[in-house]
C-alpha cells in the first residue's frame, strides 16, 4: 500500500472518529438531562419543604391552616393499605408464578394466562381504579375503604410479583429439581423445600419493587373515592380490650400519602405548597429507598448465588 493511500485512509478514519466522539458527548448530554431533571426535582422539594420536615409534621392531621397541617393520617393510611396489598399480592403472585413455572402445561389455557399477565402490566392505573369503583366499591359493596384500595393495588402490582417470581424460579438449574425428584419427593415437596427457598431473594426483590410502585399510586385510589381531607385515623387493628384484634379498619375511610401531596399541590397558597413539597419529599424518599433496596438486593443476588 502506497504511503499516499495510507495518508488518505488516516484522514478518513480521523473524520469518522470525530462522529464517534460527537455522539459520545451527545449521549452523555442526554443522560445528563435525566440527571438534571431528577436533581432539580429533588432540590426543589428539599428547598421548599425542608422547613416543614419536623416531628409535628409527621404527627399532625391535615388542617386548613397550612402551618399546622401534617401527614399523620396519610402515612398511617398508606401503611395500612400497603399491608393489605402485600397480604393479598404476595401469596397470589408467588402462587401464580410457581404454577406457571412448575406446573403449567404448554397449552392454550397457559397461553391465555400469560398473555393476560403481560397485558395487565400495561393497563393504565386509572383503569384499575375504574375496575375497583365499579366492582369492589359498588358491586361487591366493599365501599370506599382501605380494603378496596388494598385489593386494587394488589391487582395492580400482581404482574410485577408474578414476573419476579418466575424469573427467580427460572434461574434455578434443572439439576436441583432432578435431585429432589430422584429422592422421591413429590412436586409440591420439591417446590416447598427447594424452589421457594432458593427463589426467595428474587421474590423479595419483586415484592419490594411492587410495593414501591403501589405506595406512589394516586389515580386508582382517587377513583375509589379516598377522601382528600381526613382528620382522623382508621380504628386501630389491635387494642388492649377484647377482642384484641379488630378488622374494622379495613372498612374505614382513609387517605394515603400521594393523595395528600395532590391535595396540597392543588392549593394556590405558597404555604400549602411547602407542605406538598415536604410530603412529596417523604414520599419520594420512601419510594427511592425501596427501589434502591431492591436494586441492591438484585446486585448482591447476582454476586452470591453459585450453583
Amino acid at each position: 500500500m502506497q504511503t499516499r493511500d495510507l495518508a488518505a485512509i488516516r484522514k478518513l478514519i480521523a473524520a469518522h472518529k470525530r462522529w464517534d466522539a460527537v455522539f459520545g458527548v451527545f449521549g452523555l448530554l442526554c443522560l445528563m438531562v435525566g440527571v438534571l431533571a431528577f436533581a432539580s426535582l429533588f432540590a426543589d422539594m428539599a428547598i421548599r419543604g425542608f422547613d416543614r420536615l419536623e416531628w409535628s409534621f409527621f404527627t399532625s392531621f391535615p388542617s386548613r391552616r397550612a402551618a399546622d397541617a401534617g401527614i399523620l393520617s396519610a402515612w398511617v393510611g398508606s401503611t395500612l393499605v400497603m399491608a393489605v396489598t402485600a397480604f393479598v399480592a404476595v401469596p397470589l403472585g408467588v402462587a401464580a408464578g410457581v404454577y406457571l413455572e412448575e406446573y403449567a402445561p404448554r397449552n392454550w389455557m397457559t397461553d391465555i394466562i400469560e398473555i393476560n399477565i403481560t397485558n395487565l402490566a400495561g393497563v393504565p392505573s386509572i383503569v384499575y381504579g375504574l375496575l375497583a369503583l365499579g366492582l369492589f366499591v359498588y358491586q361487591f359493596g366493599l365501599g370506599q375503604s382501605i380494603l378496596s384500595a388494598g385489593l386494587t393495588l394488589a391487582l395492580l402490582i400482581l404482574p410485577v410479583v408474578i414476573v419476579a417470581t418466575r424469573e427467580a424460579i427460572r434461574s434455578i438449574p434443572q439439576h436441583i429439581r432432578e435431585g429432589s425428584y430422584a429422592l422421591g419427593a413429590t412436586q409440591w415437596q420439591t417446590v416447598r423445600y427447594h424452589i421457594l427457598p432458593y427463589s426467595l431473594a428474587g421474590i423479595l426483590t419483586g415484592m419490594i419493587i411492587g410495593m414501591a410502585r403501589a405506595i406512589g399510586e394516586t389515580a386508582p385510589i382517587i377513583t375509589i373515592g379516598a377522601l382528600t381531607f381526613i382528620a382522623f385515623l382508621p380504628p386501630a387493628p389491635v387494642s388492649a380490650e377484647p377482642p384484641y384484634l379488630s378488622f374494622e379498619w379495613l372498612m374505614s375511610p382513609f387517605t394515603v400519602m400521594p393523595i395528600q401531596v395532590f391535595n396540597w399541590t392543588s392549593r394556590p397558597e405558597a404555604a400549602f405548597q411547602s407542605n406538598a413539597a415536604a410530603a412529596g419529599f417523604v414520599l419520594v424518599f420512601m419510594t427511592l429507598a425501596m427501589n434502591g433496596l431492591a436494586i441492591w438486593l438484585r446486585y448482591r443476588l447476582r454476586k452470591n448465588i453459585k450453583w
Partner: protein
Amino acid sequence: MSVPAPSATLPAMIPVTPGARSAARRARIIRERIIESVLFLAALVSVFTTVGIVYILVKESVVFFQQVSIVDFLTDTQWTPLFDDAHFGIMVLLSGTITSSLVALSIAIPLGTVIAIYLSEFAPFKLREVAKPFLELLGGVPTIVYGYFALLFVTPLLQYFYPELPGFNLLSAGIVMGIMIVPYVSSISEDAMRAVPMSLREGSYAMGATRYQTATRVVVPAAVSGIAAAYILGISRAVGETMILAVAAGMQPNLTFNPLEPAATITAYIVQVALGDLPHGSVGYQTIFAAGLTLMLFTLACNIVGHAMRKRFREAY
C-alpha cells in the same frame, strides 16, 4: 427376630402393609392435586382481572350508550356532561390526550433512543452499571411528584421565557411526562440492542467501521423491531398517564391541539369526576366508564402490538 422399632428421628412415612401404602399414595395424590388447583386458581386471577375490567367497563358503557349515541360520542366537539344541555364529544378529551402525548413522545423517543444507543454501544462498563439503576429510579418516582414538579417548577421556569403561558398548560405536563417515559423507552430499546449478537458487531468492526457506524448501520437496524416495540409501549404509557396531567394541565375540557393551553385528558377527566360527588348510576358517573373504555381499547391495542413485536424480535435472536 422382631422388626426393630423405627428410630425416633425417622418420620413414620413408609407404611408397612400394602393396603396402607396405596391408601397413603392416594392421599398424597389428592393432596398434590388440591395444591395444584389452588395454584392454578391463583394464576387465573389475572384472567379474572381482565374479565372484570372488560365487564365493568362494558356494563356501564352500554348503559351510557343507550342514552348517548356512539356517533355523537365520536363526533361532537363539546364535552359538557354536567350541563343541562349536555354534550358528550370524546374528541375534546382525546385532543388533550393526543397533544400531551405528542409533546411527551417528542422528548422521550429521541432521548430514550440516544441514551439506549449510548449505553449499549459506547458507554464504559462502569458507567452503564451506574446509569441503568439510576434510570430505573427515575422511572420509579411517583407520578404525583412529577405532577408537582410540572406545576411548581417547570411551568414557572417556562413562564420566565414565555410570560403569557397559563398556569395550567399541556406543555409542562408533556415535558415532564416525556422525562418520565425516557427510562421506559431506553431500557426496552437497550435490551433489544444488547440482544443483537456480537458476531454481527465483529463483522462490522472487522470492515473498519467505527463505533458510531456500527451502532447506526448494523446494531440499530438489527434491533429495529425491538426498538419499535419500545416506542409503542412508550405511547401506551403516555396515553395512560393521569396524575401529571391532572395536576399540571388543569381539568378543564378544551378542544385544542395547542400545547400552550390548558386542557383535560381522558384520564384527568376521570379523576375530576371521581373527586366530585356524582351519584352512582347517573349519566355523569357513566361517562367515566365510557371514557375509560376508549382509553382501555387504545392502550390494549398498543400493548398487544408492542409485545408481539418484542416476542418476534426475541425469537429472531
